[in-house]
């Protein structure tokens, strides 16, 4: 009986070792996402330069912002792993002092919110009025989200903000797909992209929230970025 329990515990421990994400996994994950985002951004450069099409501009901006946000996300992860910290707020190196952690988190939250807004705006900018001010509005909202994240160091506030962001995203994508009569299969991908992006944010903000489910989030997120990159390259290189 005790042998059985012992074996079970060893099995659990091994499983834990496999699923515990170290620096190597973080590097690989960040590299995949940043590379995919930059390939999408630079791969569509020629099409945008030729067409000056606004939807294409916002679409590209979204992936540039994803790349920047993921860079800061991986920076936060490395700081947490190397400094053996649980929260980024605990980080206070000699040269930068106590503000280093909050500033890194602020930049990450600002760019990640803007990336989601850009994706939504690229699909909906035509139906929105007063286009000139929409982007200022999104920048302001992203700034406020980032500020709230840094000021209110509370997991419930983080969850609230991200659930709200996700609901706005789902609603916007639903309206957009309805307007275009569900013609674009990519709306499902956008939806998944937003969902897993929010999960990535929660993963950074609330330590240990997903525990062993983290690797699954990394795998699915990478899959989503690969799918979009594949579709982009297929279209760009098709003719």
């Amino acid at each position, binding site marked *: 009986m005790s042998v059985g329990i012992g074996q079970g515990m060893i099995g659990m421990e091994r499983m834990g070792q496999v699923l515990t994400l170290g620096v190597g996994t973080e590097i690989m994950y960040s590299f995949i996402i940043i590379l995919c985002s930059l390939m999408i951004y630079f791969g*569509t450069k*020629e*099409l945008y330069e*030729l*067409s*000056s*099409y606004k*939807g*294409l501009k*916002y*679409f590209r901006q979204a992936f540039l912002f994803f790349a920047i946000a993921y860079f800061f996300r991986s920076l936060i992860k490395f700081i947490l792993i190397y400094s053996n910290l649980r929260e980024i707020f605990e980080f206070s190196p000699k040269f930068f002092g106590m503000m280093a952690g909050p500033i890194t988190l602020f930049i990450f939250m600002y760019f990640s919110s803007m990336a989601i807004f850009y994706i939504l705006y*690229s*699909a909906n900018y035509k139906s929105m009025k007063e286009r000139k001010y929409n982007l200022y509005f999104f920048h302001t909202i992203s700034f406020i989200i980032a500020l709230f994240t840094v000021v209110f160091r509370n997991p419930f506030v983080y969850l609230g903000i991200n659930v709200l962001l996700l609901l706005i995203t789902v609603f916007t994508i639903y309206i*957009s*797909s309805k307007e*275009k009569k569900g*013609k*674009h299969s*990519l*709306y499902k991908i956008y939806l998944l992209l937003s969902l897993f992006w929010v999960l990535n944010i929660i993963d950074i903000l609330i330590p240990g929230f997903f525990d062993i489910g983290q690797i699954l989030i990394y795998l699915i997120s990478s899959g989503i970025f690969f799918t979009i990159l594949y*579709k*982009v390259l297929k*279209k*760009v290189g*098709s*003719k």
Partner: protein
Amino acid sequence: MSKRGRLEITHDILKIIQKNKNHIKPTPLLRKSNVSVSRFKEYLNELLEKGFVNKSLEKGKIFIVLTEKGFGFLKKYSTILDFIDEFGI
């Protein structure tokens, strides 16, 4: 008939120039483009600024000709449309 978008009008103007053996005067181009005079001027200036077309002077007359970039746009036009359609942007 649906209203032509900016991209479509740009394509139509460049296509007219190409069909005319890459050599057309501004007035016939305006007529064939099917846009108002003010809009045509706006489009032509934009095409000149972007380097899609050039003005060439032959025997004292101005002709509009396509540049490499203009030909590039025509070549990539269907790819651009496909992309916009695929990503719902």
